[in-house]
Structure formats: C-alpha cells, structure tokens
C-alpha cells in the first residue's frame, strides 16, 4: 500500500475502564479519596459483622472516654451507646442518605434538564421557570419546611434532600443537552430515523453523563452535610444511628466529652472530603481536557 495509506487501523486501545483508571490514578489526591471512600463503604458493609447488635442499645457506662474500656474502644455517649458501633452503622445511614438523595436529585434533574435542553422553546421556558422557583427559595429553608411536613423519618429526609438538590443537575443537564443536541452525531441518529425518546436517552444522555457523574459526588457530599445539619437542629431520625444525630446530641456534652461530637464530626469531614476528592478525580479522568 501507499506510504500515506489511511485505512490501516491503529493498534487497539486498552478498554475504557483501563484508560479511565490510568487517568484516575495519576491524581494522588483522588486516590486518597478513593481509599477513604472504600473505608466508608467497608464500614457500612461490615457494620453488622464488626459490632453485632443494635447500635442504639446501652453498651457500657455513659460517657466512657475512648481507649478506656476495650468493649467500647471509642467510648460511649450519654446513653451509654457505643460510639464505634454508631460510627459503623452511621456510615451505612450516611451513605444511604447520600446515594439515595443523589439518585433522586439526579433523576429529577436529568428528566427536567433533558426535556428543557432537548426541546427548548416553551418547554424550556416553563421548566426553567420552575427550576428558578426552586432555586430562588433558599434550599435549607425548603428542606426544613419539607421535613416539618413529612416528619423526620429517614426515608422522608432523604427524599426531601433529593427534592431540594435537583436544580443544579437540571441546569447542568440542560446545558449539556443544549450543546449536544446540535452535535452531528445526534443529527446523524435523527437522520437514521431514531425517535426523540431514543435520541434523548440513548444518544445524548450517555454523552451528557460524565459531568453529571462528577457533580453527583458534590450532591452526595452536600446531602450528607444537609442531613447532619438537620440532625443538629434536632430534626434527624432518632431510630437510626447517624453521624448527624451523634453530633447533634454530642454537642450538648462537647465541653466535657468532646469525643461524642468530634468523632462523628471527623467522620463526616473525611467522608465529604472523600467524595470531593473522588469527584475531582472523576473529573480529571472523565474530562481529560486538563492534562497532567
């Protein structure tokens, strides 16, 4: 063949996952985030194994300091509940709240943003007015109102957090859709006779996902912070050991038994940090525009 032949294939590239991982691991902070995240997930998964039983039961003398009694290595709170056990079970609740609220927010955001961005025109106008309305009400005030209405069950709290968090992903999805809907591959698919629904969900959405996935980590972090703020104001669900509840109650004894609030507090900081680092890593790996 000719010296400038163009039909010869390049050697096959490694799979997407491998490329993704290679990019991801270049960012050392993101690796740290991944490790922290893995630890939290591990804690959530092993909560029942490491410390069987109810984290809300009385496990020892109230307000035992950490490292005093080996039965309760991280100490106990005012009602004699084991802080270590609460930490493990709390990881479960925090992750659950984070993941489910994020899914709710993303689901609403994707539908609204996709419809607005794809169709434009009056659909966009109407949906954006609704989005603006939600965005204008301070989200924490809306959250308080929703929790006042629904009550402090963990399911409702999670749903409420999702409901107050969807506007940012909606705007993001809309922007992505507005830029993607005019891309040639969408025209190409439309030109093949693909229907609107398929165009939205099969052609455009997968391409709009990377920034949404990155932003999901932000919502996840914010959800955990919102849950803890609610618990701090005494609106958490007391039927579950959650880090927010632990801080909310622990702050009453902050001056005498700092560990009751500080240990779950640090857990929140590290978990939120892990999500943020994870998000940055994902961003670098999914949007490799910024090199090195």
């Amino acid at each position, binding site marked *: 063949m000719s010296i400038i032949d163009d039909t010869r294939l390049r050697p096959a590239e490694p799979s997407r996952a491998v490329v993704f991982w290679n990019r991801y691991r270049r960012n050392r902070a993101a690796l740290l985030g991944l490790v922290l995240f893995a630890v939290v997930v591990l804690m959530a998964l092993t909560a029942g194994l490491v410390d069987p039983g109810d984290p809300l039961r009385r496990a020892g003398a109230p307000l035992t300091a950490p490292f005093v009694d080996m039965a309760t290595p991280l100490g106990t709170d005012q009602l004699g509940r084991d802080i270590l056990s609460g930490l493990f079970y709390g990881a479960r609740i925090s992750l659950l709240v984070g993941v489910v609220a994020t899914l709710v927010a993303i689901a609403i955001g994707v539908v609204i943003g996709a419809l607005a961005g794809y169709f434009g025109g009056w659909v966009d106008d109407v949906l954006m007015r609704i989005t603006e309305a939600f*965005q*204008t009400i301070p989200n924490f*005030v809306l959250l308080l109102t929703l929790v006042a209405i629904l009550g402090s069950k963990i399911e409702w709290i999670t749903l409420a957090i999702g409901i107050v968090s969807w506007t940012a992903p909606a705007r993001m999805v809309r922007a992505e859709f507005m830029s993607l809907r005019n891309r040639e591959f969408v025209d190409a698919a439309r030109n093949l006779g693909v229907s609107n629904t398929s165009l939205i969900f099969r052609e455009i959405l997968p391409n709009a996902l990377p920034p949404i996935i990155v932003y999901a980590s932000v919502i996840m972090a914010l959800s955990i912070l919102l849950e803890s703020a609610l618990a701090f104001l005494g609106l958490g669900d007391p039927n579950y050991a959650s880090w927010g509840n632990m801080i909310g109650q622990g702050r009453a004894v902050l*001056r005498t038994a700092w560990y009751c609030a500080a240990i779950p507090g640090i857990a929140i900081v590290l978990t939120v940090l892990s999500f943020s680092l994870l998000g940055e890593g994902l961003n670098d790996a999914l949007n490799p525009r910024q090199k090195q």
Partner: protein
Amino acid sequence: MSLPIPPLLTYALRRLVQAVPVIVLIMVGTFLLLKLAPGDTVDALVGDMGGADAQFIERLRIEYGLDQPVWVQLWRYMSKLATFDFGWSFVYEQPVATVLMDRLGTTLLLMATSLSIAFTVGVALGAIAARRAYSLTDNVISTLGLVFYATPSFFLSLMMMLLFSVKLGWLPVGGIKTIAGFYTGWDHVWDVALHLIMPTAALSLIYLSFYLRLMRSSVLQVADLDFVRTARAKGAGETRLMFHHIMRNALLPVVTLFGLQFSTVLGGSVVVETIFTLPGLGQLAYQSVIQRDMNTLMGIIFLCSIIVVVVNFLTDLLYARLDSRIELS
C-alpha cells in the same frame, strides 16, 4: 464601558416582568406546601404557652382566619400580597413587614460580607493555586479549601466559638451588638464588626472553596486559550498575563456562580444565625417554619425571591460589564 440608562431601565423592566411568574409560582407553591404541614400556628402558639383550653384555641383560629378553606386563605393572602401587604405575624404580634425589616439589615450585612470575602479570597487563592498548579502551594490551598468545605458549618462555628470566645475571650459569643453597650458612631460600627467576625468567617470559609475550586479550574482553562498564547508571544510577563488577560475571562463563570449561590447561602445562614444568635432572616425562617408562622415565612420567601432577582440582575450587569461580547445596546 458606560451603561446607557434607557436600555438599562428597559432591561430591568424586562427582568422584572420575567420574574413575576416565578415569584407567583413560588408564593402559591409555598403557601400550599405549608398548608400540608401538620398543625398550624395556633398549635405552635398553644405549645409555647404551655397549654390552653379548647374555647381559647377555637377563638384564636377564627381570629387568625384559619377556619376558612385553604383556597379562600390563599386568595386572601395573594390579593393582599399584590398590594405588598405581607399581613400580620401572629407569632411576633407585629406586621410581617416590620418583622422582616428588623431582620433584613443583619442578614444582608452577613451575606454581603461573607459572600464578598468568600468571593475575593476564593478568587485570589484559586488564581494563585492555578498559577502554581500541582505544586505544594496548590496542594495546600486546594486541600484546605476542601477541608473547610467538608466541615459542617455548625461544627466549624462551635469550634470557633469554643476557641475564640470561651478559651481566648477575644470575640463575643453571639448577637449583633453588645447589649446595653450603647455604643454610637464608630464604636458601634466596631462593636458590630466584632460580633460579625465569627459568623462571617464560618459562612465564608465554607463557601470560599466553591469559588476557589471554580476559579482554579477556570484559570487553568483560560490559561490554555489562544489569546493567552498570543499575549505571551507579544512578550508579556506572567503577572501581566494573569491580570490583563486571564483574570477577567476566568472570572465570568465565577460571577455566574455568585448569583446562583445567593439563595443557598441564605439557607446556610439558618444554622450559623442560630448558633451565633444573629437576628437575621435565616433564623427567622427556621423559627417561622416550626411555629407555622405562615405570613412571616411567606414574607421571608417573597423577600428572598426579590433579593435573588435583584442579585441576579446585578450579576448579569456585572457579567455584561466583564464580558465585552455581551451587547448592552
């Protein structure tokens, strides 16, 4: 570029007209939402009083118009609102407008100072971090930003209070001014400033990281653009590049965030105002929710909507000022 007044006015008017349906949507939505809540302000009032007998409770409901169907209540409320009458707060026993105006100053002061600090410091640190991307400086700045971002605001507030008020005794614990201090003039200003240091710091440290991260990536992105290369090829030094070419372009997305963030920060101030006993709108909103003080809460939300609309208008103008591509005529 100077802003010619007539187009500015027409623009303002147009924005106002656009804002009206949104605000109506918000008000009706909030009203109906609040009606879904279990219990009303009479329940809360009676709870506060430590109990009351049945006739008394019935009397109050009629007094407050809570015996009417929801649609009637909504209609009454909205028609009064149309004349900018916010109604009466049964919790504070004052007109809502008075209650709101008492609190507005504090909140605006808190918002304005914390957001401007978050913005300026965030932008400055973000720019520095981006210029030294992937260096130790960048890592320290970025990590600190993330840590503050990851710290729940109440945790940060409590820790600061513990350190600066209780342990060191440098700063007052809470409130907006020294009560019974009777300061006037500059002493008063200084007094209020002292009281605002911690709440402002708590709020701005948290929101700072948003600006920091956005500015950092924005600067990195703009620094890669062709016109920066052009400027470099003209022989411009790094400082000049930063100030004359990168900054202004990199600021654009950050300014947009500023507008979007305002209502979030207002929500975030609920916790901070509660801890630092600041008589602001955030705390008032929280109290209004748990006391079912409909009129006050609706008033707050209305006021917030107006503030957000105004802030967005101003950020748009700022954006237009920063971005010469946006035509003002």
